[in-house]
């Protein structure tokens, strides 16, 4: 443990907003609802019918009477429904990693922030196959009475969105003021705009694309292999025994490399050694700052994430291709869209590149859709959509106001 603490202190100390700050959403709680049962299972893209399905979600801000001020926020690979504020049930539900930090987009959600809870009601739910309350591979398979493990069906971004649609309908919402997401969350926002074009007024898609690149697929393959080959993996049936921690940690380390840019790594760690700055320790343990960072990220991830979920979610990411709506033709697929789009890429993002986002922008433009594309200069790499709060806030809040005439 000592090593881990060291690693964390070598990183820049993050300042979090306290729950009593006037711009924090404060204390939050997760809600759960059953959205599929034997009589009404969810038909998945793979052909299977899945039930029961429970969905965990959180809500910030007030829904107005007409329920037309709702923003659906979609989380990325390692995110969850806890997007903002402080989870009052963190301890009770054993989600101890939430005790000392707010939700994953806390800096963007709250009174007066980009997603302004004085105006909008923000909903965020966990994806199907994930590991935080929504049904996933760690849930009990009613057929066996045991955790699904790898018997859990392959799920897709399309399945996630169909399940989210059930949640939105359950909450009595006809039309979403906006769908918002970054990375894999951005792909869900895009999918929403294509699957339910008349129920989405605005789509905000950050650091994302219509499909993952071959390079991105390759990284996911390595990450999954690391989990699949962990000595504790046991074909996914590890819930009663040792957890495949090593494999998942390595997968996460690899992920983090793809989230940073060369510049941000150089600025953050350089070639600095952890112990005495400029001198090697002459051992094979953690010696460089960057090693320490990756090790910390890997280990802290293991404490909060299920290895099977990592397999399923990365697979959904691999399979997603918005062009499926147009028989492989992205331009044709985009003809379905009705929303106003805000597409944002970050100049140093090499996982979801500005070029890929531009490809999506032009596929929409060629259909004469209403699209704003912004490439934000940033050195943070893919992580920029979580970190460039000052640059994102005016763009997103202005876009949501939409020229004032039609905004809230």
């Amino acid at each position: 443990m000592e090593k881990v603490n060291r690693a964390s202190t070598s990183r820049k100390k993050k300042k979090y907003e306290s729950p009593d700050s006037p711009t924090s959403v404060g204390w939050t709680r997760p809600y759960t609802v059953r959205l599929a049962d034997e009589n009404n299972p969810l038909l998945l893209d793979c052909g299977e019918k899945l039930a029961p399905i429970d969905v965990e979600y959180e809500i910030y801000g007030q829904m107005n009477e007409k329920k037309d001020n709702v923003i659906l926020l979609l989380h990325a690979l390692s995110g969850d429904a806890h997007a903002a504020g402080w989870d009052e049930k963190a301890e009770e539900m054993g989600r101890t990693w939430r005790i000392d930090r707010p939700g994953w987009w806390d800096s963007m959600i709250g009174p007066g922030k980009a997603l302004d809870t004085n105006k909008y009601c923000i909903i965020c739910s966990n994806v199907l196959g994930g590991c935080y309350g929504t049904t996933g591979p760690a849930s009990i398979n009613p057929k066996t009475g045991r955790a699904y493990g790898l018997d859990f069906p392959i799920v897709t971004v399309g399945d996630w969105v169909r399940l989210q649609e059930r949640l939105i309908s359950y909450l009595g919402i006809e039309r979403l003021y906006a769908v918002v997401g970054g990375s894999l969350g951005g792909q869900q926002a895009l999918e929403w705009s294509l699957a339910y074009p008349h129920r989405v007024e605005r789509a905000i898609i950050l650091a994302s694309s219509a499909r993952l690149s071959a390079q991105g697929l390759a990284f996911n393959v390595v990450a999954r292999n690391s989990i699949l080959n962990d000595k504790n993996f046991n074909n996914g049936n590890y819930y009663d025994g040792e957890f495949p921690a090593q494999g998942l940690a390595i997968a996460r380390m690899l992920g983090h490399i793809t989230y940073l840019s060369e510049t941000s790594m150089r600025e953050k760690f350089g070639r600095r050694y952890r112990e005495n700055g400029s001198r090697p320790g002459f051992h094979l343990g953690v010696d460089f700052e960057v090693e320490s960072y990756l090790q910390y990220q890997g280990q802290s991830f293991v404490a909060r994430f299920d290895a099977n979920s990592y397999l399923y979610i990365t697979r959904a990411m691999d399979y997603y291709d918005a062009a499926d709506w147009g028989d492989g033709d992205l331009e044709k697929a985009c003809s379905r869209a009705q929303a106003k789009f805000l597409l944002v890429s970050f100049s140093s993002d090499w996982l979801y590149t500005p070029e890929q986002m531009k490809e999506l922008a032009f596929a929409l433009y060629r259909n004469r859709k209403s699209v704003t594309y912004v490439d934000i200069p940033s050195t943070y790499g893919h992580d920029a959509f979580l970190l460039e709060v000052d640059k994102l806030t005016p763009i997103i809040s202005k876009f949501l106001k939409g020229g004032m005439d039609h905004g809230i």
Partner: protein
Amino acid sequence: MVYKVGEGIRWDHQVIFDLIPQGSSVLDLGCGNGELLKRLIEEKDVWGLGVDKNIAKVEGCIENGVPVLHADIDHGLHQFPDNFFDYVILEKTLQAVAKPLDLLDEMLRLGKSGIISFPNFGYKGVIESFVKTQRMPRTKALPYYWYNTPNIHLFTARDFLDLVEEKSIKIEEGMSWIRGEIKPFKEEESSEAEEILFVVSRK
């Protein structure tokens, strides 16, 4: 056609607004805060898109509810098909780009018509300022010093007419801004025009 310039509205904005028909598709290259497009979208039901490389301007467009592409007009437009727009606007921009001829070509590829407005370097006020001060001329339309001007390819009305002939471009319409009034362009009085606007198309 009678043109009137409203309070606080630029003369070329007003001319462009008046001449673009209802329901057209319009690309505004170097669109600034998108004020012109906002009017066209709201009042003339135009499908409009602005392009600007300045992120503060892009934010201005977003604030105005105008769709905008954050890109460099010199090399960010090739993904649009030919003839995709009814009108492509270059408002006081041609003289400020690195390769004006390439941009002119691109403009006439993207649009059925192009609208170009520019500060006329042949305006007598410019010439007088130059002769009198023996320094790079500064006027209302050209307020910069030599070292901070974005206008790296200044030209006169006649320069433009020469180019148009050479490149087989057709001038559909011309307007001059003369002593605070909009007048039909006449070559013989071009030295009176501080700014000029041409609507062009391919021959």
